[in-house]
């Protein structure tokens, strides 16, 4: 067994030292009736060569951004990842380390987290960010729970523009608590309709996504005013954080919590995970925050160093009174994002966002001018938008597929009111020529 060093001599010697007769004796405390009689019904060990072959064959059977032109986003975005990102996260000092509880021997991980926290604060316009959540969906759920703790209220308003899977997860998380979850409808133009009428004194928070699931930019100031008026918090969920390089930070617009998914920042699509949930808020709510926090301090000689801090919020200290049950988080994905943002930098990220916007605007223009296609929603967008197609969305996407294109998400289940529509995302990976091909395929025109 290549992963296990023990030779038979080693085993003998160790059994002697322990003072037992054989390996079975080590399991003497397990009542005989609880021991597995035979072998597990699993195959025998496979060699490295065979395992690689088997997994390569399985991988071959998944379409991906290297085999198809890609316009599918809807919460997981196909962005280019510089090689340096994987080079750094492949440093085994990072990926084979545990949570940095022992600060003196974990400064590398700790400093990187502190850098991430700083970046998230800058992007969101808030004061404090944690060291990751499982994903955007659970981050949204944790934000709702946090708002309930802060306001001591139990009514949560979820915008229809929040990613349907996120909505599901929030409901699941709140399922065990006496909480009321209410929908805030989507307006004609693809933005959340005025929420003011729906917010009441029992409302803990209003949760809106920005840009929302349909790609529309929300009116955060309105949502914030409505929430504030009734003492509710405004939770803004972002699952395409690249947009924050151009958009005014939600924190500036009245958001009390900004959370979501940061996969766009150098984390591979990876069939949906591991991705990178994030959560930021205002200083005054820090003690109600879920998740780990890294803080700066000094060592016994006064030199700056970093440690996990404010742990009294966490399960390993507070147990049933903790702000969350999260323990293992998405540390390595946080590192990917930190390296990614460091590489792009202030200007690089902003330029990348401009490029994504330009691609989308080009695609929207082509859609507008193409017979059979239209834009069902008028709200402004960033790099994603709905396209109404002739016939069924399924058929339209099939046409695209025949041309080697994964054309977007079929919206018919998520938003029947839009008729046959496809949610299309254009990132820097989409070339003009590919966009033209997509438009042609969706319209059903011959190429």
């Amino acid at each position: 067994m290549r992963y296990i060093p023990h030779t038979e001599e080693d085993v003998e010697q160790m059994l002697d030292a322990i003072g037992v007769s054989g390996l079975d004796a080590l399991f003497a405390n397990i009542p005989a009736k609880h021991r597995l009689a035979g072998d597990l019904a699993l195959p025998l060990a496979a060699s490295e060569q065979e395992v690689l072959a088997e997994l390569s064959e399985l991988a071959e059977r998944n379409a991906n951004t290297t085999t198809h032109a890609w316009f599918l986003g809807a919460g997981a975005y196909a962005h280019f990842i510089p090689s340096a990102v994987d080079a750094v996260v492949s440093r085994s000092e990072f990926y084979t380390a545990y949570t940095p509880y022992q600060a003196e021997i974990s400064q590398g991980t700790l400093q990187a987290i502190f850098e991430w926290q700083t970046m998230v604060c800058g992007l969101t316009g808030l004061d404090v960010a944690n060291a990751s959540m499982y994903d955007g969906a659970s981050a949204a759920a944790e934000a709702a729970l946090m708002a309930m703790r802060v306001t001591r209220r139990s009514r949560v308003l979820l915008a229809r523009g929040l990613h349907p899977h996120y909505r599901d997860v929030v409901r699941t998380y709140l399922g065990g608590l006496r909480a009321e979850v209410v929908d805030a409808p989507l307006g004609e133009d693809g933005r959340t309709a005025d929420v003011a009428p729906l917010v009441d004194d029992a409302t803990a928070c209003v949760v809106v996504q920005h840009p929302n699931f349909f790609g529309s930019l929300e009116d955060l100031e309105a949502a914030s005013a409505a929430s504030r008026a009734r003492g509710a918090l405004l939770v803004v969920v972002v699952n395409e954080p690249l947009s924050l390089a151009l958009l005014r930070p939600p924190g500036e617009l009245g958001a009390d919590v900004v959370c979501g998914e940061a996969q766009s920042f150098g984390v591979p699509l990876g069939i949906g995970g591991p991705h990178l949930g994030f959560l930021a808020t205002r200083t005054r709510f820090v003690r109600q925050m879920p998740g780990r926090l890294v803080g700066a301090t000094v060592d016994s000689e006064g030199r700056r160093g970093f440690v996990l801090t404010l742990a009294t919020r966490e399960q390993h200290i507070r147990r049933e009174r903790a702000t969350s049950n999260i323990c293992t988080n998405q540390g390595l994905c946080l590192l990917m994002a930190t390296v990614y943002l460091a590489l792009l930098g202030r200007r690089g990220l902003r330029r990348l966002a401009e490029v994504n916007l330009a691609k989308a605007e080009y695609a929207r223009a082509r859609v507008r001018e193409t017979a059979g296609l239209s834009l069902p929603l008028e709200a402004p967008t960033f790099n994603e938008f709905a396209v109404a197609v002739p016939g069924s969305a399924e058929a339209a996407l099939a046409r695209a597929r025949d041309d080697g294109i994964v054309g977007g998400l079929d919206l018919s289940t998520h938003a029947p009111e839009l008729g046959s529509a496809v949610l299309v995302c254009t990132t820097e990976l989409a070339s003009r020529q590919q966009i033209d091909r997509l438009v042609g395929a969706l319209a059903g025109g011959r190429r």
Partner: protein
Amino acid sequence: MSGDHRADVGNTAGGFAYEEPLLFERSRPGRTGYSLPELDVPEVAPDDVWPAGSVRGDLPGLPELSEVDVVRHFTRLSTWNASVDLGLYPLGSCTMKYNPKLNEQVARLPGFAAAHPLQPTALLQGFLQLAFQLEQQLAEISGMDRVTLQPAAGAQGELAGIMMIRAYHEQRGERRTRVLIPDTAHGTNPASAALNGYDVVAIPSGEDGILHPEAVEAAMSPEVAALMITNPNTLGLFEEHIARIAEIVHAQGGLVYGDGANLNALLGISRPGDLGIDVMHFNLHKTFSTPHGGGGPGSGPVGVKNLLAPYLPVPVVRKLAGDEGDGYTLDYEFPQSIGRLHASFGNAGMFIRAYAYIRSLGREGLRRCAEMAVLNANYLLARLRDAYHVPYDRPVMHECVLSDHRLANTGVTTMDLAKRLIDYGYHPPTIYFPLIVHGALMIEPTESESLEGLDRFADALIAIAQEAHENPELVRSAPHHTRRSRLDETRAARQPVLRWQPDSSS
């Protein structure tokens, strides 16, 4: 280093660390480590397409560096970490085993790394097959009937499990309010129960460190929805009365949740599903070798008995049968499902690694893994028994727990021992957990460690015990060899500095 009494201890020698400031302190306007193709569509000014006031001004909090500076920054940071690839990392309860390089390679195949969770199932067959097979493998290993891979980590698995238990009771029109949890349990257990609106009732362990039927009997009632039990428990002891305990809970309509964090000790030896456990989580990042990544990501699949199957999270991967043709599909139609826990399928990248691991070990390898993990823990216990107090001195499973009892008069604490171990070139064990052991040192070597490696580690701990008596100050002021000496955690909490700011003193 000559004259430095602190050099060349344990398996270390003198050395130095490269200093490196924060990214923001290295930043210079105008630098970048990135490049983009020429834009092949018309330029668009956000102001022209967005409502007034939507566009942000400056982008604070992002640095500007060249690729070489970024790579050096993080390469230097990495050298400040301890890691499994550099040495023994005996964190109790964390199962810091070797993370095979093969797993890292296969997880990076474009068919996995560059595929999208929402692409049509017809274009995702390879992954769906892998997920389906992994579920079956975990079910077989654990003796459960069904498995969901969705939870992103153990704690989310606990949450899912408790939610299914709640759904099960509600389905029968019962509103149970309590969850029983032994005092040795990990913090996530009570936290998960509470997050589900349950009141947590702590059950005391017996003299011998394990749970006794009487204790459960006493606390059990129709109010109790479930008992959460970790087996082997966090003292590394097998819960010998598990079956009887399960009977007691079941007798009053309660269910038994098994925390599978310590499953490594039981692989191929004993199956939770055969011991009366109704639902349990797995930590792929512990038992199944996926890397801990400096805090994550992990993966916490949950296995259930058939009685809980209707409540599994959606979607569920199903193998097509009969005239549906071959292949796999995703089912959403489970009216009683607790719903979704994750935006997609969970931490899919970890499924791939765990699958590669299970295929690599095979049934015989998995059993060998448990045997060697238990052998290693017992060997360490034998080596350390004379130097350290062993609160529950009996054969252990995959880990052993020591206490600082014998150091009482030295003024040296468990924390000091831990820090001094760093000077010897070892990451410290888990400390001050489980809570019921005063100054606990919880040591889990895992099967990855060789006999010689264990001996060197034991020698270090024994040497430190001696130092504690002969030169306590040396231990109390440890670590001495690291780039930073002991860090002031109190200050960090009292005056939180949680991000860098241009002016910030930090």
